[in-house]
């Protein structure tokens, strides 16, 4: 696969980084609670599987649920704003403003309003997820080629036909760019939402670890989050490959 072939440079940098990290930890005898070495983290990651695997599955479940809801909301909002231009003018600036409220500030409010159940958590993930999708999808809809639009209109297409046969497929690659960003955000959103108060999850595991100075476990949590994000990203990419088949292989440009 091309990705693996192209991925050797960043992989090399990562390996070098780990080596420097490992060597410095040993050389300067840095205590484990301050900064564990990669090998110590690896050992904890391997040995502690039974400690954290239920946290992991819980976070994965929450992420998928939140992402699905967030993505649906994002796409629905984009379609709505696109089809009703007046609504777009009124709402779009507000949506951008909403992104300036830090989630960390909003989170306690959500707990006050909705308690400790799943609802405030899903709301947090939705809030981080929907924005990139909405913006990307709106952009995609607006960039629809005017040539194709003229053709569709002159052929007598209705508004609905123009949307489904032209604007929607035209925006699909953009929507996928939004989905890719959101997929990685959703993992972060899930962990943050778990800090609000949850029984289990990577967020909980992390909080427990840091309060008991198990720094190695904090790092295990960090790596789990990174791996999860990557996996979700890769899932969306492979979905895109399956659905967007009309692009030339190799680069994304059309040959004319």
């Amino acid at each position: 696969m091309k990705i693996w072939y192209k991925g050797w440079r960043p992989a090399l940098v990562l390996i070098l980084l780990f080596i420097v990290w490992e060597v410095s930890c040993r050389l300067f005898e840095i205590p484990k609670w301050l900064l564990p070495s990669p090998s110590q983290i690896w050992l904890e990651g391997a040995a502690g599987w039974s400690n954290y695997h239920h946290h992991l599955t819980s976070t994965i479940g929450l992420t998928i649920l939140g992402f699905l809801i967030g993505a649906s909301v994002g796409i629905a909002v984009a379609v709505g704003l696109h089809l009703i231009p007046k609504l777009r003018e009124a709402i779009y600036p507000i949506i951008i403003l909403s992104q300036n409220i830090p989630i960390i500030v909003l989170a306690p409010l959500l707990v006050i309003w909705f308690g400790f159940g799943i609802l405030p958590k899903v709301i947090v993930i939705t809030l981080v997820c929907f924005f990139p999708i909405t913006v990307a999808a709106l952009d995609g809809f607006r960039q629809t080629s005017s040539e194709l639009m003229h053709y569709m209109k002159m052929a007598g297409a209705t508004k609905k036909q123009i949307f489904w046969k032209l604007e929607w497929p035209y925006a699909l690659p953009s929507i996928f760019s939004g989905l890719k960003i959101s997929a990685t955000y959703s993992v972060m959103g899930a962990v943050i939402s778990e800090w609000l108060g949850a029984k289990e999850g990577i967020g909980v595991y992390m909080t427990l670890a840091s309060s008991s100075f198990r720094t190695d476990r904090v790092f295990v949590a960090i790596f789990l989050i990174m791996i999860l994000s990557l996996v979700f990203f890769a899932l969306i990419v492979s979905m895109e490959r399956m659905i967007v088949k009309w692009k030339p292989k190799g680069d994304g440009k059309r040959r004319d």
Partner: protein
Amino acid sequence: MTKLLIENISKSFGENQVLDQLSLRVEEAEFVSILGPSGSGKSTLFQLIGGLFAPDFGEIRLDGKRINGETGSISYTPQSPSLLPWRTVLGNILLGGEIVGEIDQALALKMIDKAGLKGYENAYPYELSGGMKQRVAFIRSLLSPQSLICLDEPFSALDEFTRLEMQNWLLSVWEEDKRAILLVTHNIEEALYLSDRVIVLSEKPTQVKKEFIVPFPRPRQASILLSEEFLSWKKKIYNELRVIM
């Protein structure tokens, strides 16, 4: 019987008056070409017939019915092939009919075969050459149910060889199913070779400057392209255009 009747239409974009009381007609089963300098409003004329916008003054009638600002009444091939990149050749060809709810897949496959595109039914537009894309756009027009076909400089992007080949192919298809065709071009030879009548437009603000009835018999033979008579016709029209440009 008159297929398309355009009476005294004018169209301005802001200060820019493009069409000025332009009138023309196309008869049933007639092949008419429009020659005009670039920027004279040929594409605008098609967009008016296609109902993308309405003329400021005047009337457009198709089969006697007023169609000012009404979309869906003509089968149109734009200047660029305008194929949907996510649809296969077959999917693109069916689009025109699909929009009005008439899908004839068997006929589409037959036309693909006749156009020399067999084996490409499931190819995406990016896999096709310029000439092939243009052919797909043609078949899409031909399979659209509307009775007037408007072609906007369909051959201008093609090389000389492909162009002649495509012209012959278009003629052969048209001989079988004689629908009215209105073709925009800036190639005098092409207009003469293909059409029954050639309309020369003036500069902006555009009116019809001159009309020529082409005397060559049908079906057209490629050999006429080299005849004395063809050359003298070419000169006649060239002189008309030179006055403008």
